[in-house]
């Protein structure tokens, strides 16, 4: 009994330390964002929302934020629209073409991010289409397509074949089977991929920096350049904003569906 308790305590302490390690930078950033002084002081001195006011009154910050959101939403829709036909063809027709596309689409995920960034930098330069917002959208959609591919494939895998066969015996055509049987089951997975790609695109720095120009600065790029020139607590506001958005997105997924299963746990 004693050894059980000791083991439990050891686990608890260990996990708590990991949790503290993970939470530490987030706590520092968010508390600095409520700081009353212009200096980076921790623990914070006095509570105020003045940096939030400043953030939302500065068109360059708000502009960068809006651009980030537009890019992220567009990239997520584009990325998912690429993944859905591939995952469907793999599931329904065991298509070799789809397998090949899935392999190619998964490649960016096993290449170091800086290689992907250079590839896109080159590409947009060579096709002479530089510094445009759609460059970032397309690059993000392609870079992150592996995520919706995996998730939507997981979704189709959870459609039981007997359901499809039952529908077919009742006379459903392929498109009707897709709409009435597969889609409702796969939909939560599609929504999860949209959220995932949005959050990842929102936070991506290197590609956005390399393929975008000054006019298409995203929030991470703006934070990075301000970080190189000197601190302001306004940057922390941006960080808190992103943290909140990410947290909201994942909470939504957890509410909407089975998060552990989506992440690969059984049942």
């Amino acid at each position: 009994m004693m050894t059980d308790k000791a083991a439990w305590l050891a686990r608890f302490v260990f996990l708590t330390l990991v949790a503290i390690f993970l939470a530490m930078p987030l706590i520092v950033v968010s508390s600095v964002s409520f700081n009353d002084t212009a200096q980076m002081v921790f623990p914070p001195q006095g509570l105020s929302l003045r940096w939030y006011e400043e953030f939302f009154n500065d068109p360059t910050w708000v502009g960068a934020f809006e651009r980030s959101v537009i890019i992220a939403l567009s990239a997520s829709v584009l990325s998912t629209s690429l993944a859905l036909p591939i995952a469907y063809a793999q599931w329904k027709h065991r298509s070799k073409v789809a397998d090949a596309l899935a392999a190619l689409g998964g490649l960016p995920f096993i290449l170091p991010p800086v290689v992907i960034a250079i590839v896109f930098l080159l590409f947009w330069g060579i096709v002479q289409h530089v510094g445009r917002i759609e460059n970032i959208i397309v690059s993000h959609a392609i870079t992150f397509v592996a995520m919706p591919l995996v998730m939507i494939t997981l979704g189709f895998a959870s459609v039981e074949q007997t359901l499809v066969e039952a529908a077919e015996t009742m006379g459903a055509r392929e498109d009707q089977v897709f709409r009435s049987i597969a889609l409702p089951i796969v939909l939560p997975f599609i929504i999860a991929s949209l959220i995932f790609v949005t959050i990842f695109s929102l936070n991506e720095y290197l590609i956005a920096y390399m393929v975008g120009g000054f006019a298409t600065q995203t929030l991470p790029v703006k934070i990075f350049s301000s970080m190189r020139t000197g601190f302001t607590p306004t940057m922390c506001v941006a960080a808190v904003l992103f943290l909140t958005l990410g947290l909201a997105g994942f909470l939504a997924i957890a509410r909407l569906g089975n998060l552990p299963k989506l992440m690969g746990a059984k049942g």
Partner: protein
Amino acid sequence: MIGLEVANLSKSFGAGKVVDDVSLSIEDGKFVCFLGPSGCGKTTLLRMIAGLEQPTSGSIILNGRDITGTPTHARNFGMVFQALALFPHLNVGQNIGYSLRLRNMEQKFRRERVSELLDLVALPGVEDRSVNQLSGGQRQRVAIARALAQEPRLFLMDEPLSALDAKLRDHMQVELRQLQQKLKITTVFVTHDQREAMTIADTIVVMSEGKVQQVGSPVDIYRRPANKFVANFIGQSNLIDVEQVAPGTVRFGETTFPVASNENQLEGTTLCVRPEDVILTAPGDSASGLIGDVSFVRDVGSSVEVWLQCNGREILATASPARWAEISGNERLGIDFSANSATLLAS
């Protein structure tokens, strides 16, 4: 001699009591089956004996020593798991020899012992095979050999045969029983299959809702069920509500007749009769005076099952084909209960 004793053992998960104040004694060298429907707590009870779950209260005593707090690895109980849990990264020989390696047995002796054990489970010479190359029955044997390698003080099995097909399962039951008798090892076996329990065990512990319902030999439990649950769960029975008019005499509807009841069950008001103990006669020949209308007949070849309506109750009887040939012309039949076969149960 009493080997294992379980005293007032309880286990709760959250609000639910999975095992509720169970006390049991298991004699040395016996083959004991925990039998019950799924969720009755039999597996949890086994896992507490193995040390894989800590009881909420109560104690487990082995040969007079309290082992409730002893960790699993120090108990030296061999266990066969439902999913077998053969280590996929080790071959057959390494699986069986794992417990010996843990006890620092020399490689040479270990190989000898492993090959002895494989002979014992009738699977000689497969030491170097991968466990994934074995058939279901072979994996079963390897799992049994692995659990026996450490010469355990207690041999525990958690529904080990449930994954096998019916024929192989029957075969393994007999083999397992013979193996146990040969080794004289105290064995606890968990199953939900009453036929399996009847075939294999010296003693059956019937469980339901975390409580022990009855402990006894297979025949005991079948012939003299302690309560309605046991009577219903083990085999088929007719449970008839009766009124006791005098010791040993009951009234069912308008009819009064004697039953040879168990001394301590004299208070009971439910009569339990197995279908094969219902004797069908021509309407006039019934000694008890009970008469029933035949409502349904099922001829399964080796016997005939007959459903009758009697005093507003349905009664099931089985008759031999020969007997049925004599009486099958009648739409009404007399019903008798053979001597010493009808038991009164407490309601």
